[in-house]
């Protein structure tokens, strides 16, 4: 933030952010899991999550957010990339072409009959990469101001 004489009053923004933040993040999770058979997926989910973090950045300042989320976003992106590659490497073990995916119905105690797909692991990687990269870029530009 630029130092101006005026004291900014962002009480409304901060209060609303505290509530909306969680709705946005939950919505992003919803989109992430919807991604297999319906619109959504890792990329969009990741973008919305980083949108939520940016909302935090706008409502509070960089220092506060860093205290709340002490994360090195470059490493987050690298972690996501690693998950994505490793999900592909699984195909070496099963003797099928690289990045082959499969899905099936699994019975999980509380949730009941659940549809699981290996593509979700790859998508999880994409999710982390998108959050990591977007936040790295925004921080690089935002921090030096």
């Amino acid at each position, binding site marked *: 933030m630029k130092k101006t004489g005026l004291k900014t009053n962002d009480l409304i923004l901060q209060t609303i952010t505290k509530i909306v933040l969680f709705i946005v993040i939950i919505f992003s999770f919803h989109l992430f899991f919807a991604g297999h058979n319906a619109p959504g997926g890792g990329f969009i989910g990741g973008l919305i999550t980083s949108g939520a973090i940016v909302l935090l950045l706008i409502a509070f300042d960089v220092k506060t957010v860093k205290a709340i989320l002490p994360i090195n976003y470059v490493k987050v992106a690298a972690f996501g990339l690693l998950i994505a590659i490793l999900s592909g490497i699984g195909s070496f073990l099963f003797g099928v072409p690289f990045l*082959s995916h499969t899905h099936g119905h699994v019975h999980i105690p509380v949730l009941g009959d659940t549809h699981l797909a290996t593509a979700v692991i790859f998508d999880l990687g994409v999710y982390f990469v998108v959050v990591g990269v977007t936040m790295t870029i925004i921080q690089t530009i935002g921090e030096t101001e």
Partner: protein
Amino acid sequence: MNNNIIILPIIIPMITAVLLIFFNKQEKVQKYLSAVSSVINIGISVFLVHYVHTNGIISLEVGDWKAPFGIVLVADMYAILLVLTANIIVFACLLFSYKIVDYNRSKFFYYSGVMFLLTGVSGAFLTGDLFNLFVFYEVMLMSSYFLIVHGNSKPQLRETIKYILVNVISSALFVISVAFLYAVTGTLNMADLSLRVAELGSSGIIAAISIMYLIVFGLKGAIFPLFFWMPGSYQAPPAAVTALFGALLTKVGVYSITRVFTLIFLQDIAFTHTFIAWLAVLTIIFGVIGAISFSDIKQIVIYNILTGVGVILFGVSTMTESGLEGSVYYMIHDMIIKGLLFLLVGIVFSITGTTNLDKFSGLIKKYPTLGWMFFIAALALAGIPPLSGFIGKLKIVQGGFEQGEFVLAFAVLLSSLLVLYSVMKIFINGFWGEEKIPQVLETSQVKSLYVPAAFLLALSLFYGLGTEFISSYIKQAEQVLLSPDLYIEAVLKE
């Protein structure tokens, strides 16, 4: 049998790059990990070369999506030979970087950048899908943007802006050409495209699209008149990075032109390939003019990239057996020798602190090994027998004569002489004469920089003297280029 092994030259550098991001503060881990993965990669590439040599072209349908619909990776001899060469050059450049890249720069993911670059380059060589080619191009370009600006000096920032702008425009053009080709044929698999374009016969629209591809790849490969961005951009980064760029990036463009114009756009050879032949010779001429007129050693070598690109493309444009064989020979030779020359320029720079020929001379007294290494590299560059450039150029010129392009083939021959002059100018002015060395680094420090250069020089000598040993591999690469049916059969498995 499952052909998953083709993916290894792409994902090993990628995993390495990712792991290096985690260990960015530990310099030792960075060095060892990148070196080890580079050596493993060379091993796998050698195995693949051998495997393709005995079993023919292999292809992998990624994600088990069948061939014309999904993405395929194809390892034919040409592609896999280039992957091997690229890996070797990356290894040499890594060895060089260990000595000159300090902790402050390696901390900011320098080695990751190099590994991502290798990922993109290997991917671009191995893919059999046009849009996937675009994706790997972008991987390669993103890491090249990163590497070219790495260090944040003022000239680097300034040149990177122009470099990115040129490449963003050419990427947009790439997407547009993909869109047009998809509209006309309805497929993006290269083997399938080859069949469908052949069905369409020679039509104006295909010729127009093929020229669009020539422009797109020509911008990356720096052919006339699209080379304007290269001298400035390659001048800015340090020697190890320029060696990578000069040896790999432009060659990926040339490889793509070769692939596309020997596999897909074969309907109107009289028009497209003659056009390429003229552009190739103009590229050679402009490269030679640039190389002679500059007195900066880095610029001289940069302009020699142009000449190399022109010679390879001329071989491709002849579409004869010897011309294509020569272009394969010359491509690999050119990658090795350009990497070597840029490393030597880097050594000279770290001794003298300048690349301007007016500011130093008489290096050979204190650094005789360096002088003679440079001398041999210069001879090999010009194509003096029995060194590595000779056989390729001979075959290319022979192909030109077979095709009846006497004037153009003579221009290629003549260019060798001028190339020799341009590098001998460096030798005579920089290494001979009275001793004038601005900033003497300790000799022991410089000596360790010799290792990667000597490694590449030995490779280049082996390539030239052991032609007998390599020729069956090159022959196999050339056969696929000459008869696309081999490629199509391997991919579509009809």
